[in-house]
């Protein structure tokens, strides 16, 4: 099953999105900052035989479209930043899809607040896993934090580590409490030695500390799903057909589609 995540930055990205979705045969689309849910749905389904369905995200600020019927994707949790769904397709193992758009760094009050929200997301995911009795969970979205930040990497937040070898150990105990791992392949998406762009978001400010490239759009995989996750299929997309979505400088061209590229990944379920 192919998944695409994209923060479309409130743009009318329907035609570009539908071309990408068709080109890569995407089965499930997660969007952040989607202003026109209906227009996007119409674009996705224009001329398509296998039509997408818009699913109910409640109050969460992400939108999910699926090629399969809504009856196969049931809500488990909704809050302002995170939606968690059970995807249960006939003859395939059930998975939990968590999709998030955490608050922007530009508007947050403090690092502590960002960490608190990440901790809350982690707890919501754990509760859903306990309720459903499995941890075949994938978290995708614009997390508005880099993989190395506390909200992503600390044991009491999302606890997302940089290698499969560590993640397969499933959990670790810190001060008497067990914390479960996520694997975060996006650690490998930094800099200009990667096969994609140097990050998923570019910013240039006059601050003393400036990374320029950030990896805010991420895919986190629980160890129980690692056998189904194909590292090679993970891509940060910078093209739509023959058209580049990047500015000549290499940064995402917000005027063409969005200020961040989309992320494509596959779960072989």
């Amino acid at each position: 099953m192919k998944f695409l995540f994209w923060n479309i930055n409130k743009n009318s990205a329907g035609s570009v999105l539908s071309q990408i979705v068709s080109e890569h045969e995407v089965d499930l689309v997660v969007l952040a900052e989607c202003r026109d849910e209906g227009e996007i749905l119409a674009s996705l389904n224009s001329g398509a035989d296998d039509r997408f369905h818009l699913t109910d995200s409640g109050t969460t600020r992400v939108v999910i479209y699926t090629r399969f019927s809504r009856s196969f994707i049931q809500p488990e949790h909704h809050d302002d930043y995170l939606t968690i769904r059970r995807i249960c397709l006939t003859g395939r193992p059930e998975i939990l899809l968590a999709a998030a758009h955490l608050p922007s760094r530009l508007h947050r009050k403090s690092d502590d607040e960002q960490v608190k929200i990440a901790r809350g997301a982690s707890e919501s995911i754990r509760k859903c896993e306990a309720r459903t009795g499995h941890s075949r969970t994938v978290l995708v979205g614009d997390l508005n934090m880099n993989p190395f930040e506390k909200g992503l990497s600390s044991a009491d937040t999302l606890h997302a580590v940089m290698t499969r070898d560590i993640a397969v150990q499933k959990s670790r105990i810190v001060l008497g409490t067990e914390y479960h791992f996520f694997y975060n392949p996006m650690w490998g998406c930094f800099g200009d030695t990667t096969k994609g762009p140097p990050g998923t978001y570019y910013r240039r400010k006059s601050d003393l500390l400036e990374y320029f490239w950030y990896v805010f759009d991420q895919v986190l995989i629980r160890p129980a799903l690692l056998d189904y996750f194909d590292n090679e299929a993970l891509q940060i997309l910078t093209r739509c057909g023959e058209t580049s979505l990047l500015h000549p400088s290499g940064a995402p061209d917000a005027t063409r589609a969005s200020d961040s590229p989309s992320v494509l990944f596959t779960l072989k379920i």
Partner: protein
Amino acid sequence: MVTAIDSLWPAEIEVPDEETAPIAILKQQASILGQKTNNLVEAIVQTKAADFSRFMDHSFILVAPALNFYRYPLFSVQHRADKLYPVTIVKQSSFEGAGVTSKKIEAEDEDQFKGVLKNIFADAKTKKVVGALIKQSTASDEIAPP
């Protein structure tokens, strides 16, 4: 110790195969509506028991996912639980004026039932409702410059 009891059911249970069940026809039509509208307007069929379970009641409800899953009940179909036909189609014909009025249409068999559905789907009011839902679903919140 539990003693095994042989099945007391007959070897064959007869399933009527010459008629299509009303619910199957309704679900097919619901699916076709989604295809025709790019899933901007879909329909669902909700079934419940009626008349102390002597009857089944299938509601045909339009759903507009992009309008916060707005639901518009178009009509309902009732038949005896032990028989597929005849059916009674109950159409809410008006929300105007003082209240809701409903109109009952009888269909003796599958062909009549399909004919009634065709008339309901082609009805000006139905087309107006579906059209309005599509229009609102694709309404951008962007205000064009003067």
